[in-house]
């Protein structure tokens, strides 16, 4: 649980100091007042990455040299500062040089924002990224396997393209690697999906309040036995000069009452599905890791009708810390925000409401 947050020279904030509630903390303000930047700073502090940009320099305030973010996470003092390309990460004044070691000291976050709808509407790539993120949190072998798979895939595609007559003896040596790592990746993804399903289904029913039966289906790009799959596609691959089967072509199919969500679900339904997937992820992380991720919820309430909104608020994992930004509090019904702390934000200045 993050109890204190202090940032300086980050995005539009010169300096900024606030306490966060163990339950819900709300930041209310009009557009372009820095609401998302607060969530971003927490994400950077906890995970050293931002969903908005990859460049640290974007995050430093204009005409400032360095930015810093400080927070108290379950009694530990975390400090992240960046000056130009240099970064410093400390926990209780102990400095860490490796990202990995620092990340082991912090906690997980789940970012829930308006872009999440890409999970439903966007390409399969965004759904694979969603699965990859979850699976890499759950098993240590996943990320190395994924990296090895991607590297072997690049080499194999290169070999397929390079020669007029592909040299299959060399290509096959990479096919074996794809089979080895790909089988593991697909197994882990399937396992993740089966643990997501009960949560996502329940969330969809709860939040929609209707009989919206959500189903998640892992769609393989070819035969489930990868070794056979490559054998079957050999001719097509020689023709198209591309690796045609494997986890890099798999998809997560989402449907509501047996209809494909990307085509037939309404905007509101699609948003609800995306939310269900994200919140299901935080439930699974909590179940496996034994601790709650921090939920950073960026301005999603404007797009949902009031009943979905209120049901959504009650469906977050129990005891999870929630930090929410919103443009107005009109939607909040009596009592649903009890015990939460509310800040109003205007031109980078903070006021407790």
């Amino acid at each position, binding site marked *: 649980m993050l109890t204190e947050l202090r940032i300086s020279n980050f995005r539009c904030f010169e300096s900024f100091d606030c306490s966060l509630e163990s339950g819900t903390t709300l930041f209310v303000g009009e557009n372009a007042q820095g609401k998302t930047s607060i969530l971003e700073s927490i994400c950077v502090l906890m995970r050293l990455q931002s969903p908005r940009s990859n460049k640290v320099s974007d995050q430093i305030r204009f005409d400032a040299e360095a930015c810093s973010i400080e927070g108290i996470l379950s009694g530990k003092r975390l400090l992240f500062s960046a000056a130009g390309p240099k970064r410093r990460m400390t926990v209780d004044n102990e400095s860490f040089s490796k990202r990995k070691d620092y990340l082991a000291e912090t906690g997980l976050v789940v970012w829930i924002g308006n872009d999440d709808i890409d999970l439903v509407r966007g390409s399969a790539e965004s759904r694979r990224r969603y699965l990859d993120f979850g699976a890499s949190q759950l098993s240590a*072998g996943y990320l190395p396997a994924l990296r*090895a798979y991607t590297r072997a895939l690049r080499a194999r595609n290169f070999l397929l393209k390079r020669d007029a007559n592909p040299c299959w003896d*060399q290509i096959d*040596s990479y096919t*074996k*690697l794809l089979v080895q790592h790909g089988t593991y990746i697909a197994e882990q993804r399937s396992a993740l999906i089966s643990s997501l399903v009960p949560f996502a289904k329940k969330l969809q029913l709860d939040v929609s309040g209707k009989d919206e039966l959500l189903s998640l289906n892992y769609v393989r790009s070819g035969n489930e036995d990868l070794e056979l799959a490559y054998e079957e596609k050999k001719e097509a691959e020689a023709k198209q000069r591309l690796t045609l089967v494997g986890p890099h072509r798999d998809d997560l199919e989402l449907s509501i009452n047996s209809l494909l969500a990307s085509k037939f679900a309404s905007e509101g339904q699609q948003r609800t599905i995306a939310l269900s997937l994200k919140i299901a992820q935080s439930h699974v992380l909590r179940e496996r890791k034994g601790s709650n991720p921090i939920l950073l919820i960026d301005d999603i309430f404007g797009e949902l009708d009031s009943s979905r909104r209120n049901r959504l608020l009650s469906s977050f994992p129990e005891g999870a810390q929630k930090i929410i930004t919103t443009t107005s509090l009109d939607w909040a019904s009596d009592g649903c925000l009890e015990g939460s702390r509310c800040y109003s934000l205007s031109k980078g200045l903070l006021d407790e409401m």
Partner: protein
Amino acid sequence: MARLNFPEEIKSLIDTLKKLPGIGPRGAERIAVWLINQDREFASLLSKVVEDSVQLIGACEICGFFKSHEKGCFSCDDSERDGSVICVVEQPTDVIALEKTGAFKGTYHCLGGKIAPLDNIGPEDLRVSSLISRIEDSDFGEVILGVGSDVEGEATANYLADLIVGKGLKVDITRLAQGLPAGGGLENADELTLYRALDGRRKV
């Protein structure tokens, strides 16, 4: 007034040093200036050892390890080595690392790299055909694939194993094991190493 710069002699020294692996323009300048400031004997000694190594030592045509032009290959021509097992590695330096263990008494074969299509290195750029003819001609009972465990290393091992089996050669093919670092506690091992160690556990 002419602008001052390095004298021509030093410039060409810098240009030559820059060609060495791992040495950039700044490093080359630093080494050149340092060399100039040493006494002359050091420069003569340096040029002599470079000259000697290049003149007297080369790569063995058969196994790829270092070979003295006078005394022959240090590895192939050593009759005390166990001729029933051959260990395939990427570079001669890997041989020296393995020799330090003292555990391997067999013969070696240095490929001179690994198959890496993205860096434009194929089997024809490596000592692969000479490895095959060695296995065909000799009486090896076992081929140990001692290439690295990165993606290219694994691909090279797969390629060699397929090639040897494909030629119908009767020989055991083995791969170096992966797992816990010796003499270390579990807390020092990274996640992937532990994962591999768990994966490759054996019965006691």
